Structures are given as C-alpha cells and as structure tokens.
C-alpha cells in the first residue's frame, strides 16, 4: 500500500519521537505538505562509479535544503535515478521515455559517454518492445528538450578517469556528444553542496556565471591553494605531518579550482589536505592527468 504525504509525515513524527530524532528532519517533512512539486529531474549514470550520487547523499547544511531527503521531498521532482528510484525494468524505462518525449526537464548526467562499439560499452535501458537503448542514445534524446543539462562530476563534464589515456571505450563529455552547453559541477566525486547549490540556482531562476570550462564561478573561482589555511606553513617532507603545506610533495592545490578548504567535506569532518595528503586535482578538466602523486613522473618517458 502506498503512503500519502500526510500519513508519511505523521508516521515519521510518531516514530521520530520514539527514536529521539531531532527537529530538523521534522521541519523537512512539514515543508513537504506545503510544496508538493518541483522541476522534473532525470539523473542518468553512464561511464561512472556512482561516487557522485553517494556524495550527494552526504549533504548536510544549516541552510535549506538541509539534507538529501529535503532536496528530494521539497525541491525537485526526481523522477528517474538508477540508485534511488523504486521502479525497475520496463516501469523505469517507461518513465525515462516519457520524460524524453516531453520538455523542460533538468537532465543530470553522472559519468562520461562511451562511444566505442557504437555506444554498446554502456546501455541505459530496454524498451517495452525489447530494443536496447545505449547510454549515448539516452543522453542524446534527453538532452534535446532539456531546460538545463547538469554534468554531475568530472566524468560527465570532461570524461574524467574513464577517458584517461588510452581512453579504452572512447569516452566523450556530455557536451561533446550532445552539442549542447552543460553546467559542469566538477569533482571526483563532486561535493554535495556544489550539486545542491546548482540545483537551488536553477530552481530559483538565478543566473549562474561560469568559467571558460563551464564551471560555476561562485564555486570554482579560486584555487584550493589560495584558500588553503596551510599555504603559509612550512613544507611537509613526507605524509603524516600535521598542519604543513603539501606543495613540495606534489599537491595540485595551486593549479586546482575549488572551495574545498572553506566547505570542507562530510559535514565539515575533514578534507583532503587536512588529512595530510595531496589535493589530486579532481575538479580539473585534465584530471587524472598523467600522474596524481608525483611532481616529476611522466607517463610516456
């Protein structure tokens, strides 16, 4: 049996009281009664690792929407997401085909687009008539009438690790495959606050200025090093040294755009450089470069 929104809230309120769950979650659900809908979002996964979707689930903020549940219940109408949707098989495929036949949806793409084997390196779904739809075909058809295309993570934006030399499956970016501009929410994985920020801007109709790589300037305007609290510190000589600058070990913070030192990661628990390790440049269009952990290594010497 299906639970109505109102039942959902009341049941949640009762069990939350029993479990001692805080007020934040209840406010999330109360808003759901007031705002029954949002823009349709279809989230596709291609040559990807699911890491950006997992990262989105880690959203926690003192500002609304506070959590992923808040986003799903109050902000967007997430009709298709391979990891989260209840529907499967032809029921899921029918949703995607219906959205593709309409317009005005937000297309979120996680992962690059493999073009080898005529796209058969990645399939999206099987139609009711039994024909298989490649991920390349799915992205192409859903991009055509999308109001906006979000590239969730470095793979969708520029190919990322699956497109690294020798690019075994001919991975292309969503922009290359569709010929349409994309808003590139970079990162491997991308930060949940960056995804939610972009969705918030789109939903509210606020303009988004982007850099020459299609990344929001508000998020990727400065280098990690410029924002890093360790930049004036002594140089670390090895891993495992607290509060020292990692530039001499090969940190890519000086050339990598991102506000990680300010947002931090995982509810502000930590971030790469504060675990005494390198920024490996995961928001860069050239990621993963020819090396990640050395200042001198060349892949083809």
């Amino acid at each position, binding site marked *: 049996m299906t639970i109505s929104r109102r039942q959902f809230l009341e049941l949640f309120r009762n069990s939350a009281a029993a479990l001692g769950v805080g007020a934040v979650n209840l406010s999330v659900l109360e808003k759901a009664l007031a705002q029954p809908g949002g823009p349709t979002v279809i989230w596709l996964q291609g040559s990807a690792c699911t890491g950006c979707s997992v990262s989105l*689930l880690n959203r926690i903020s003192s500002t609304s929407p506070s959590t992923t549940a808040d986003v799903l219940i109050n902000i967007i109408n997430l009709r298709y997401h391979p990891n989260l949707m*209840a529907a499967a098989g032809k029921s899921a495929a029918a949703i995607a085909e219906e959205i593709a036949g309409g317009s005005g949806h937000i297309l979120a793409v996680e992962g690059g687009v493999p073009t080898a084997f005529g796209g058969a390196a990645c399939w999206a779904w099987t139609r009711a008539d039994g024909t298989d739809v490649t991920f390349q075909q799915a992205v192409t058809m859903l991009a055509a009438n999308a109001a906006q295309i979000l590239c969730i993570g470095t793979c969708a934006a520029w190919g990322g690790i699956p497109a690294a030399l020798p690019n075994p499956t001919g991975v292309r970016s969503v922009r290359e495959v569709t010929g349409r501009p994309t808003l590139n929410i970079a990162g491997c994985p991308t930060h949940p606050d960056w995804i939610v920020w972009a969705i918030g801007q789109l939903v509210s109709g606020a303009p988004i200025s982007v850099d020459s790589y299609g990344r929001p300037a508000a998020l990727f305007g400065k280098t990690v090093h410029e924002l890093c609290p360790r930049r004036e510190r002594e140089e670390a000589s090895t891993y495992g040294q607290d509060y020292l600058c990692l530039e001499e070990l090969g940190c890519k913070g000086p050339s990598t755009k991102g506000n990680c030192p300010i947002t931090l990661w995982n509810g502000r628990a930590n971030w790469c450089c504060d675990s005494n*390790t390198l920024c490996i440049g995961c928001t860069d269009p050239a990621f993963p470069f020819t090396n990640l952990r050395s200042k001198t290594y060349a892949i083809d010497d």
Partner: protein
Amino acid sequence: MPSTIKIDPVTRLEGHLKIEVTVDGVAGAQKVVDAKATGTLFRGFEAILKNRNPLDAPDITQRICGVCPVSHGLAASMTLENAAGVTAPDNARIMRNLVLGSNFVQSHILHFYHLAVQDFVSGPDMPPWQPNWAADKRFDAATSGVLVSHYVQALEMRRKAHEMGALFGGRLPHPPAFVPGGFTTTPRPERITKFRAYLAELIAFINNVYLPDVGALANAYADYYSIGRGHGNLLAYGVFDLDGAGQSKLLRRGRILGGTGSALAVDPKAITESVTYSWYSDTTNNLSPSSGVTQPVYPKGGAYSWLKAPRYGGASRRKGKRVTVTPGAPYETGPLARMWVNGEYTRGISVMDRHASRAQETLKVAQAMDVWATQLGSGPVYQQYVTPTSASGFGLTEAPRGALGHWVDISNGKIGNYQVLTPTCWNASPRDSAGVPGPIEQALVGTPVANLDEPVEVLRVVHSFDPCLSCAVHVMRPAEGSKIFALGHYHGEDEVHEHTHSH
C-alpha cells in the same frame, strides 16, 4: 507456456545490470526456470593504469566504485606494499580498518534501507519512491510507515558513517589518505573522540532499528528463507587485519562447498575464468587469470555478458593432443560468506539469510571498531614508500559486498600490468564453459513469480546479493589483441599459498 521477462535497468544497485528470466509453470506455480545476468558497462581501468606511476593506483582504483572505494584504496595499498616487501605501521593498519569499517556500516545500511527495502514496502506518494510495483506488499500501514520513516533516518545514519570515516580518511567517497607505506592522517585525540561518538550513535541505530527491522522483514517474508539459495558455495578472502602481517583477521579467509562442512583453504591459483558466454574469444577459455589473454568478440553468438565467469578449483585432462578443461565451481561472495566462514552465521543460504547476516556483520564490525579506536597510539602512521623498479604483488581483502583482489606487475618503475577481480564478478557471472550458471543466475532458478508484469520476487533475489556493477564491469577493455580481463601474473606463489593457510 514459458514467458521471458527482461528487467533492464535493475535499479537500486550500483552500476548497470540487466536480468532476463524465463518463467514457466512448475507443479502448478509460475517459477523462474532460467536466468541470465548481463553487465552492461565497461570502462577499462587496467588499460588506464598501465604505464602510470604505481603510486597512482590507490586513487585510480578507488574510482572503480564510489560505493566501495575504501576497499579498492586498501587493496591497492596492500598490493604495492606486497610488491615492495614493506608492512604498514600499526597506526596505519588500524586507521585503514576504521575507515573501511565505517564504509561497511555505511554500505550495509544503505543497502538495506535504500536499495532493498522498497521491494517489500511502498514509499511516500511521490518520486523517486513512486511508481513502485504494488505486488506482494505485506506490511500493514503502521508498519510500512515506520519502515519508511526509518528510510529517512537511515539516510542520516549512513551519512554519519561517512563523516565518521572521513575523520581519518580525509573525505568519503574516495578517501585520499590511503597510500602505500601507511596512512597520511594522524590519530589526533579529538578525532578519536569524535569517531567514538559517531560510532556510539550508529551502534544504537544498528541495535535498536536496523536489526529489529530485518527481524520484522524476516517474520513477514519468512518464505524468503527458502528462496534464492543458489549453488550454496561461499567464498571469503577475509578482512580487517588484526596484526601487521594479516595473520589474524576479524573475518577469516575460507570457502564453503555445497553449504556444508567446515571452511576450506583458499588458493588464488585455483581460480580460472570461462568466456564461452562472454564477449571474448573462445581461444582464451578457462585460463588461469595469471596467464589469461583475452580478445573481445562483439557481437558473439551465444554470448550475453561483458563479465567473464570466474570459477574455483577446475581441472584439465590431456588425452593425446586434446586437453579437456573442466571449469571449477561458481562461488557466492559477500557478508553471508564471511559470517559463515567465521562460524557466526550458518542458519541457511537464501534471500533472508543474506539480509540477516549482513545486519549481524554490521554490528560485529561496528563493535570491533570501538576497540580498535582505543588502540591508536603515538607511533608512526607512514614509512617512506620507495617504488621497486621491477616487482609483482597482490592484495586480497573484502568490499562490503564480497571478496576483492588486486594484482600488479611493476616494470621500469611503472605499472606494467594491473588486474582487479571484484565480488560482483563472482556473484553476477554468466554461465561457464560447462554451461553452469553464475551465483545470481542459479539463485533465481525456482523463484516464484506471481505477476509477470511486476516480477518483484526477481528483484528481491538479485538485491539480496547487493550487486555492485560499477565494480564488476570495469575490467574489460576492447583494445585489439590485448589482455582484457585477467587476475594476472602474480608471482611469489608460495607466499600466496602460505597466506592462504594463515588461519
């Protein structure tokens, strides 16, 4: 008359999986009589790793899977340390265990509440929870509501498990603190305190919510104790080293044949791979992965998956010029295999036993972490790692969803060859050269299907394995004439053997 059902995409798992089942009347009931599992994405990580700096392997291989990156980061670090003959300091071993354990807790909670439970309970009346198949939802409204509210609470709990792991890992997913030679984070006292506070909350959730909910599911769907058994073969590499050499582990290495008997030794040399039903040249059939050379053939008659079929314990027999190879047995891997090999869960092998053993393992790992956190000391976390010019190594560990192995050849200081064999390669494999189905395929046979339009019973069986196709299908690459899928070239075989018998 038999009907064929295709489920594509199989949602609520990681990666891309297609399931095709044939349903027919068996003794008056509609049941699955045949099943095929197809992995539908490949990326080619081994080709990407070749010629790179070996130090990149932990970062690159973590991106195989955003749900089990910690296991790949650990396996790669162990593999490079094995190649160089070095052992990580105790503090590093413990912090690795804490980050890995955090991700086990995160992944198991995510699996039950966010991937599996909607096969039994219908969620709120809005996307992405609707539409949902209405078939065979047995809970009353009050119980359904409680489970759905726990879905929301579990989102918070799995997030906190990641925050807990990030205290040492740097961030999650894709923690940057895993490096050969040890770990980069220091175990500062405030981090240990925060870690244990998160853990206390998670242990309370596991005890008070997760385990009782699995119990409630088992009561309402007790028939699922006899659905989805499969071959009954269980394989675990073991995980959570309790000493520097990995001689002692929280969860032991071993295998169970036919669902009975005590745990048998695991010898990596006994693994071979069939390609009869995979899109690879038949001339490469049933090779040991250490010598496997595979060429893609696409399309190929009869083939239906990019996955090969790993098997354990095959045999070859020569008669004149003709060599007949019998592939070994298919093995299921995952929490049930680990808990069974450890002697802690032996009730049975089924859909519900997979859920129950996974929940029990979650508590076991969480409780162990609370002890490990107190064992962190002021000693070193890292010793300088020097990449050997020429060496080979391997590392065997576990992802939340089963046994994971990495193998490397280093030549001229670069990665000459890198190979990965993931848990879902075992679980979601196609048929082998003898026509024996893979573990998920076999587990589906006999599953009742009441409504051909809403085959939720099939989803329940598949989801019970917690498949992770992101992991499983990375291993093929289509470069002509090159090796596509191989465990590859591990040397120091005596050491492998000795390691196998370390328990």
